[in-house]
C-alpha cells in the first residue's frame, strides 16, 4: 500500500482543525474553572486520604482527564469513520478522488486505520500530557505549587504510561472486535445514505429485541453483547481485575504495581482472541469490507 502515507496525510489535512478543537475545548472547560475557582474537600475525604490527598487528587485528575480526552476523540472518530463512504459525495469530490491512481481497498481502509487506531492512540498521549497540567492546577488550588512538585512524578508518570500503553495496545483488538458492527454501519451508510445509521440501529436493536422477545431467538442480542464486552475488556480489564484503587490501599504500592498489572491484563486480552467467536468476527468483517469495495468499484453510488 504505497499510497498509505498520502491517504493518511489526507485525513490529517482534512480533520486537523476539528481534532484540535476536540482537544482544546474540553481542556479549556476543565482548566478555566480550576484557574478561577476554588477547590475544597470535605473533612471526611481529607481525614481518610491523610498525607496522600495530593497524590490521590493528582492520580484521579490524570485518570479522568486522559479517559475523557480518549473517549471524546474515540467516539467522534467512530462517527467520522462510519461516515467515510459517503463523505465526499456532498461536494462531489468523490469523482476527483476516484480519478486518482488509488485502489478502492486502500481508500476505504486507510481512514479506518487513522480514525479507529491512530487518533484514539494520539488522544491517549495528549490526554496524559494534558492531565499533568490539570493535576498541576488542581493540586496548587488546594495545596501549593511546592506540594505538586513534591509528588512522586517518577512513579506517577510510569503508572500513567503503563495504563496508556495498555489501552493503546488494546485498541487494535477492541477495533477488531467492533469491526463487523462498524463495517455494517459503513455499508449501510453507503447504501442508504443518511438513513444508514437508523437502518442499522433498527435492524440490530429493534430486530434483535423482536427476535429475542417474540421468536425466542436471543442470539443477535447475545452476539452484540459479546462483541461490545470483548471490545471493552480488550481495552482494559481482560484479566478480570479492573483498574480500581481501594481506599485502604497504599497509593504508592498501587502505582508501583500498575505496570505489571497492565502487562498481565494485555496478555489476557490477547488470549481471548483465540476463540471461534473472534474468527467469526474476522470472517464477517472480511465479507463486509468486500461489500464496501464492490460498492466503490461500481461507482460508489455515483452515476454518470
Amino acid at each position, binding site marked *: 500500500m504505497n499510497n498509505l502515507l*498520502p491517504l493518511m*496525510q489526507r485525513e490529517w489535512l*482534512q480533520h486537523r482543525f476539528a481534532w484540535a478543537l476536540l482537544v482544546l475545548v474540553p481542556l479549556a472547560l476543565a482548566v478555566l474553572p480550576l484557574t478561577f475557582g476554588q477547590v475544597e474537600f470535605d473533612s471526611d475525604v481529607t481525614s481518610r486520604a491523610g498525607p496522600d490527598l495530593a497524590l490521590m487528587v493528582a492520580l484521579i485528575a490524570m485518570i479522568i482527564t486522559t479517559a475523557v480526552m480518549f473517549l471524546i476523540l474515540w467516539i467522534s472518530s467512530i462517527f467520522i469513520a462510519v461516515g467515510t463512504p459517503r463523505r465526499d459525495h456532498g*461536494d462531489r469530490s468523490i469523482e*476527483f478522488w476516484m480519478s*486518482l*491512481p488509488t485502489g478502492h481497498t486502500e481508500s476505504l481502509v486507510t481512514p479506518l486505520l487513522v480514525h479507529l487506531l491512530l487518533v484514539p492512540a494520539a488522544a491517549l498521549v495528549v490526554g496524559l500530557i494534558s492531565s499533568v497540567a490539570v493535576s498541576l492546577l488542581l493540586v496548587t488550588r488546594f495545596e501549593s505549587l511546592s506540594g505538586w512538585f513534591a509528588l512522586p512524578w517518577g512513579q506517577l508518570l510510569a503508572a500513567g504510561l503503563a495504563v496508556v500503553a495498555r489501552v493503546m495496545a488494546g485498541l487494535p483488538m477492541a477495533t477488531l472486535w467492533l469491526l463487523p458492527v462498524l463495517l455494517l454501519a459503513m455499508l449501510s451508510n453507503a447504501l442508504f445514505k443518511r438513513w444508514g445509521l437508523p437502518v442499522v440501529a433498527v435492524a440490530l436493536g429493534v430486530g434483535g429485541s423482536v427476535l429475542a422477545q417474540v421468536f425466542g431467538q436471543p442470539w443477535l442480542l447475545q452476539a452484540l453483547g459479546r462483541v461490545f464486552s470483548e471490545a471493552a475488556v480488550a481495552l482494559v480489564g481482560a484479566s478480570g481485575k479492573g483498574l480500581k484503587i481501594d481506599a485502604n490501599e497504599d497509593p504508592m504500592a498501587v502505582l508501583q504495581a500498575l505496570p505489571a498489572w497492565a502487562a498481565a491484563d494485555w496478555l489476557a486480552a490477547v488470549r481471548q482472541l483465540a476463540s471461534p467467536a473472534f474468527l467469526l468476527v474476522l470472517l464477517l468483517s472480511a465479507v463486509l469490507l468486500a461489500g464496501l469495495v464492490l460498492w466503490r468499484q461500481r461507482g460508489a453510488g455515483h452515476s454518470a
Partner: protein
Amino acid sequence: MKPETTDSALVEARNLSVSYGAKRAVDDVSFTIPKGRVVGLLGHNGAGKTTLMKAMVGLAQPQGELTVLGLNPLKQRVQLLQSACYIPDVAILPRWARVSDLITLMSGLHPKFSADRARALLKRTSVKLSDKVKSLSKGMVAQAHLALVAAIDAQLMILDEPTLGLDVLSRKAFYEMLIDEWCDGQRSVLISTHQVEEIESLLSDVLMLNEGKLVLSISLEDMDRRFVALSHDASVAEQMAAAHPLLKYRVQGAGSMNQASLFDGEPPPHVQALGKRMRPSLVDLFVALTRKPELDRTHF
C-alpha cells in the same frame, strides 16, 4: 478513424457496451485512438459520452473489449490512472482543501505529478496556493483543477467538458496550453465539450455519439473529403432537397447564397452545379447526424 495497428493505438474498443440496469448508455461502439491525436467526443446530453469516458478509466463496467494504454481499465485501474489523467468534471475539487493541500496530496498519490509544474501553471491563473477551494468561484475551481491535471506527465488525457464555467480567455489559455505544451505527438487527448465551434480547430479526430451509438468516427481530414457542403440560393432549395442532403441550414453572411445543404459523399454533378462548395463545419455535421429527422432547421 481507420483502425490503426495495435502498436500505435492508445485506446482500442470493440463492440463496447455499457448498461445501467435496463438502460444501454453505450451501445456496441468500436473505435481506436492512436498516439498523438486530439479527439473530440461529441454528443447531446445523455448520448453516452460520460459513460464511455468512465468505462475508459475503470469506473463503469463494460461488455465487449476495451483496452486503454494496453491495460484493462476495470482490472488494472490503478496502473492505468498512473499513465492517464482524467477530469470527470471541473467543479469537483474537495471544498475543505487549500490548493497547496491538493498539490501536496497529488504529489504523494500520483507518481507522475509534478508539483513545480502545477505551481507554474497556477501562476498563470487567478488562483493562489493558499486559497481554499470553497472560497473559489466555479471558474477558478476549474482553472485550479486543469492546472493540477496538466501537471501530470500522462500518455492519455481524458477530459469531460473541462472548460465548463471558464470565461473565454481562460478557455483559450487552456487550449493553448494543451496544444503547445502537452500534445507532443506521442500523447493523446480525448475531450468532450458542447463548445464544438471553439474546439474544432484543435481537433485531429472526432467521435460522435447519439443515444449510445457511435454515428461517426473519423479524422477531420477524412471528414473534409467525405462530406460536402454546398451553399446555394433559396430558389434552388427544392432541387437541393430532392438530392436528399443530410442537413439543410442557413448560412450567415453569404449574401444571396444564404442556404446550405450538407451531403455524405459527392452529390450528383447537376446538384453541385446549383451551388458553391464550402467546407462543412463540425457543428453542422454534428447536427446533421444527431438531430431528430422530424425537425427541419430551415423553418422557424
